């Protein structure tokens, strides 16, 4: 068994006087979907932004593939192969699918872009994910449905051979059928061997795709459990109260002061 693809230990982050993340440990394994759940303000998005290099960490260490690394900016994260798909979809409406997938990393030499090669690569990537719902890769992103946009955003991470993909509420703005299609894609991403982190508020979504569930409660990582070992009710308890039976925070009477 090899090392986890991404491992954070003892991560702390404060915004001024507000201590957002307390000694958070977080592990992502290649080929697994890890759901990151927690109430509003529990620190999920902050954690993701720390991993993505958008926020600096106050303390804590990061290992990638078993090696100690430092992430001090989005460039570092991208070089390691960490890709984030945000809730609000960082896609450009006025560009087509190919242009979006290659945005900022266009192929070609000098003044000339190699449109044919880019189109080919985009098409192959979508095919490798069995995405056949998009008619043409030259469709403008503004003409796509919410689900298709998410698909393009996710496919982008595959095209760039990312090792870890973090998805921040990818289905928050989608209808039932589109949500399911995106979750199906998330699952196939993991089956290709990528480490996938899914932030979601929807327990049904979490249970239908996640292999592991990591729960944040008021900035602390209270549980990291295999989905098969827990029930819906237990996870909801962990999210709202920080503990459920033997899982999560120690009971106050047992806690050492």
């Amino acid at each position, binding site marked *: *068994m090899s090392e986890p693809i991404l491992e954070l230990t003892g991560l702390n982050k404060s915004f001024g006087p507000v201590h957002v993340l307390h000694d958070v440990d977080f592990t992502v394994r290649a080929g697994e979907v890890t759901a990151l759940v927690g109430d509003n303000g529990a620190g999920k998005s902050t954690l993701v932004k720390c991993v993505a290099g958008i926020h600096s960490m106050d303390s804590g260490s990061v290992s990638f593939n078993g090696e100690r690394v430092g992430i001090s900016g989005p460039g570092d994260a991208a070089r390691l192969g960490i890709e984030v798909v945000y809730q609000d979809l960082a896609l450009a409406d006025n560009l087509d699918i190919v242009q979006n997938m290659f945005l900022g990393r266009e192929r070609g030499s000098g003044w000339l872009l190699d449109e044919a090669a880019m189109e080919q690569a985009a098409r192959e990537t979508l095919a490798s994910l069995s995405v056949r719902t998009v008619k043409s890769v030259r469709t403008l992103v503004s003409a796509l449905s919410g689900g298709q946009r998410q698909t393009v955003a996710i496919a982008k991470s595959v095209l760039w051979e990312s090792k870890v993909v973090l998805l921040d509420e990818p289905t928050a703005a989608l209808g039932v059928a589109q949500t399911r299609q995106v979750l199906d894609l998330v*699952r196939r991403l993991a089956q290709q061997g990528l480490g996938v982190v899914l932030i979601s508020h929807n327990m049904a979504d979490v249970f239908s795709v996640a292999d592991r569930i990591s729960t944040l409660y008021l900035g602390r990582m209270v549980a990291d459990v295999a989905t098969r070992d827990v029930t819906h009710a237990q996870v909801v308890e962990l999210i709202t109260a920080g503990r459920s039976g033997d899982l999560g925070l120690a009971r106050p009477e047992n806690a050492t002061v």
Partner: protein
Amino acid sequence: MTSTPTAGARPDEVRRHNRTALLRRLHVDGPCTRAALATELGLNRSTIKALVDGLAESGVVEERVPRARSGAGRPSLLVLPQPLAAVVLAVDIRVEQVAIALVGLGGQMLGRDSWNLRGRAGEPDEVITRVIESTRVLAEELKVAPVAAGISVPGVVRRRDGFVHEAPNLKWTGVPLGDRLTAAFGFPVRVANDAEIAALAEHLRGAARGSLDAVYVSADVGVGGGVISDGSTLRGTAGYVGELGHMVINPAGRPCYCGSRGCWETEVGELALCRALDLPTPSPRGRIVAELRALTPDHIPVVLGEFTHWLATGLITIVNAFGPELVVLGDLFTALPPQVVTEVAATVSRRSLVSRAIGGTRLLTSTMGTDVKLTGAAELAFEPVLHTV
């Protein structure tokens, strides 16, 4: 084809037959010019014109002037199958997950869904309910109405009515899956063994295309196989065939749930691979794929040596028994390092007497990925549909 060989065919039957053949050609091999259709089907151009006109009128195909012209003269019109003219439901029930897709004429997947089976979610009632609900949601979203369904099940299935006798890895026994889904959907539902379905997919759209004698072997939790013999699927009495994973291969091996000991699947199935890679059992598919990819060339013989040995041993027996020109490895086997596949191929061609006799059975990994069973299930559903569209 309904006509029996002893009865003469009336002109309308001939027409119907030609129409189905033409549609099948377009469905499996994609858009094609009228001229090419005439050559391939061996029909004259006016017959093709009449058939295509009829299909175009009912909206099953569309005709377009081809973009790239070849040769002189008026270009022959390109005939394109219209995906929405006939939509079928494909369902792939696996041990750990269920995937469904709505597939249009020509094989395009219009929409899809999948979910994990954990605990109660794997019980037949739960699976059936979720398949029905999920299909409804997907069909509404896409604004299509499926006309038939094909279901892939990892178990022993009666072809006639889709009765699942035993699907041990799912812990199902005696489930009238076909009847229950037919009653719920109101359209024909065909159920078949997953390996047989995958073999069908490989034969029509994958690596075994155009190959008359091929064997498809795949590993999930269980190991199964499908055999294409002389161009058609080999089926046993009532369709119970394909349990290649239960060839006893290592009499001193582990006990198998089927009551036997040392079945092939206990040596080359997903659990065996987890053991070799030192992963917890069961592990998610992606974990196994990632571990296999992380292996360095020097490490492969150490970690997978025994696995490679058993894989080759089983394949030698299969090649000797069925004499295929081609063996396609599917599902989890596609994640094996190329080095392992090469070694297995070499061992098989050296040690199998049939392989030596036919000049070397080829061994390929499937290029259809995890969708092979969905594709095959769609083809199973399309079989009767093409006749009636």
